[in-house]
C-alpha cells in the first residue's frame, strides 16, 4: 500500500537581507509595536538600554494593525529609510 504524504513544506522565496550594521554606536532604531499589552513598553525599555550603552536613538515607532497581521507592505520602505535597525517584539 502507499503511504501518502499529507504535508507541505513552506515555499521558498528569495529574501534580500541588508547587511547588518557593523556597529551599534549612533544607530537609528525603528520600533515595530504589535499592539500586545506590553509590547511598546518592552521595546522602549530595550531601546533605552541600547541608547545608554551604544548611543542609539529611536527614530520612529510603527504600530502594527494587530499581532495577527503582517506588517503592511508599504511600511517597509519607510522603516528602511528612517532606521538602521528595526526591533520588533511581542511582549504580553
Amino acid at each position, binding site marked *: *500500500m502507499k*503511504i*501518502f*504524504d499529507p*504535508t*507541505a513544506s513552506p515555499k521558498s522565496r528569495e529574501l534580500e537581507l541588508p547587511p547588518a550594521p557593523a556597529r551599534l554606536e549612533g544607530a537609528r532604531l525603528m520600533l515595530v509595536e504589535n499592539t500586545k499589552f506590553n509590547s511598546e513598553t518592552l521595546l522602549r525599555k530595550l531601546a533605552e538600554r541600547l541608547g545608554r550603552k551604544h548611543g542609539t536613538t529611536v527614530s520612529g515607532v510603527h504600530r502594527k494593525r494587530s499581532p*495577527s497581521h503582517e506588517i503592511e507592505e508599504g511600511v517597509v520602505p519607510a522603516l528602511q529609510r528612517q532606521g538602521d535597525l528595526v526591533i520588533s517584539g511581542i511582549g504580553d
Partner: protein
Amino acid sequence: MSAERSETTDPAAVIEAYFAAGYTDGLPVVPPTDKSIADTLAAAGLRGDQVLGEIPSRNTVITAEKAAVNAVMAGCRPEYFPVVVAAIRGLCRPEFAYHGPASSTGGSAMVLIVNGPVAAALGINSGNNAFGQGHRPNATIGRAVRLTMMNVMNTRPGVLDRAVFGNPGKYSFCFAENEADHPWAPLHTTRGFASDRSTVTVYASNSLYQVYNQLAATPEPLLLCVASALANLGSPNLKGFNESLVVLAGEHTAVLRDSGWSRRDVQQFLVEHARLRLADAKRAARLPGDVTPADETTWRRLFEAPEDILIVCAGGRAGSWSACLPGWGKKWTRSVTIPVEGAIP
C-alpha cells in the same frame, strides 16, 4: 504526489505508519488511496495542483491535492470536500488573519458553521448534540480542516500552535445552523448570501461556555445571562472590540421568537449589557492602573457594534441552554463566510 510504498497490506499496520510519520491528530486516520484522493478532488471539481489559498506569513500554499489527502485521512466522504475547501479558503482570507488565532496561547477552535442546502444534503447535524459526537460530516469536515492546518499550514502543537490548553473543538468543530426552526433569517443571509446559497462561516473561538436559564420567559433576563457569559473577568479580551458567537437553542429560541424581538434587538441588548465596571477590571488586574472613584461607576462595553455578535440557532429543542463562544477581538481576526462551490449532491 509524494508517497512511500509500504510492504504491508495489513490496514492496522498502515494506520500505524501514519502515526509513526506524525501525520495524525492523535486519532487513527483513513489511509488514502489514489482512487479516494481522485474521487475527493472530483467531487469539488478541482485539479490537484489548484491552489486553494496561501498564508503569506508562513510561506504556505495549500493545494487541492494536499487538502484532499487530509480530507480522506479525516474520514470525509468525497461529497464533503467542497465544504472543506470553502473552510480552507476562509482560513486564508486576509481578514481572518490566520496566524494569530492559529498560533495563540489561547488555543482557538476553528468553528465551521454551515448554512444553505448543502447542510441537509450532507446530513450535517444542527440539532441535538450539534457540537458533539455522532454525525460523520460534523466529525470529519472539521477534522479535515484541522489536519490540513497541521500538515499543510504547519500549525503543529508546540511549534506554530502554542495553545496552553487547546480545547476538544480543535479536533473538529463543525455544525449546521438550524434554519428550519429560526426566529429570524439564517446567518449567511445577513452576510449578503441568498438563502438558497450554501456557505461556511469560519470563526476562531475560545472554549464553549454554556448558558443556562430555565425561568426566563422574556428576552431581558435570558439575555442578561448571555451578556454575563460574554463579559466576565476571565474573558480573553476586555479591550472593547470583541467579536463573539452566540448559539441559541430550542427553548431560548422560542422565548425570543415569542417576544417579537428582532435579531438586531437581541444584538443591541447584548452590546449594552456585555460590560464590566472599570473598577472591577482593575481590581482583578485585567486592566492596568489604580482604581479611581470614577471607575466605580464607569462601564466598559466589550462590543462596539451589534453586528459584532453573531447570532446562530442550533442545538436540541428541549433544554434551557444556549452557548457563548468568545472570540479573539475583531481587530485581530474576523469571521468570514465563504460560498460552497459546486453541485449539491
